[in-house]
């Protein structure tokens, strides 16, 4: 899967999984996932961890990895592209 398709899939997951009130195409790649970006808080992060792990077969075992993976939409796409299990 190419990067654009993966980015689109990630954004779709954010919108449906976290019930965001905006279309996926409205989410910029550099948008921070938490705080001011998409307005999500750290407890929403728990659900995002579960959604991303299940959908993309990656492991986000702790906060350190989580901070890296969820720094922005682009960072999440990069993380998935690198860590994804075949």
């Amino acid at each position, binding site marked *: 899967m190419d990067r654009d398709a993966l980015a689109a899939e990630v954004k779709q997951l954010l919108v449906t999984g976290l019930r965001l009130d905006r279309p996926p195409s409205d989410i910029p790649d550099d948008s921070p996932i938490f705080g001011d970006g998409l307005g999500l808080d750290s*407890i929403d992060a*728990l*659900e995002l961890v579960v*959604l991303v792990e299940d959908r993309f077969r990656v492991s986000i075992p702790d906060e350190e990895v989580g901070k890296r993976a969820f720094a922005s939409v682009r960072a999440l796409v990069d993380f998935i592209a690198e860590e994804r299990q075949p």
Partner: protein
Amino acid sequence: MSQLVGHRVLVTGGSRGIGRAIALACAGAGAAVAFNWSRDEDGSEAEETLAVLRATGATVHGVQADVSDAEAVSRLFGSVREALGGAPDILVNNAAVTRDGLLMMLPETGWRRVLDVDLTGAYLCSRSALRGMIAGRWGRIVNVVSPAAFFGKEGASAYAAAKGGLVALTKSLAREVARYRITVNAVSPGFVDTRLIRELAEAERSELERQIPLGRFADPDEIAAAVLFLVSPAASYLTGTTLHVDGGLTML
């Protein structure tokens, strides 16, 4: 009794005593039930427990695992998922050890072992269980604590500290995951008629019984009944609390 049909339960330290009674109550209520035990010498009791559980007709699974070991916990959850057909949506953190001794003379290894099993074990199992519970947007965690958490207990400071920590963990985690319809509660059993109590001298037994308003030790089934209530639909509005199932010993 079929209130837990379709649910998957993991009871840690479930080969005997209170843990076995909890596992049996959940199996009797229709759940698929897994339990673990840790020490080699408890293997034969674990076999007996498996046989008793199987007799209920439930799907059951028993596996040896030390809950204080992160890798062992990861393997435990893997084997439970496989055996029960999915991740547990009900977790009972019951596994515990104690190390008697006055604090000033308690070796650090003893202190650490108690904290590792009783408190870190609950942390490791809860974090493994939560992923499945959050995905399913439903879950029940019950932590088995002790009156020692509320009163302190001389000669058992590590145990009391670990159980006190587990009460605080119960409340904090309850706040963190309430949004996902996951409740986290504790049950505090008083003196239960298990091997430990039966081994006491008669005079000690009656002295203990005098301290209990209901005047007798608990049957393990009476503790299991409280756990069963907390994981049942009837307890959907309880979270972060402790049920003191202790014959009136505590009365907080």
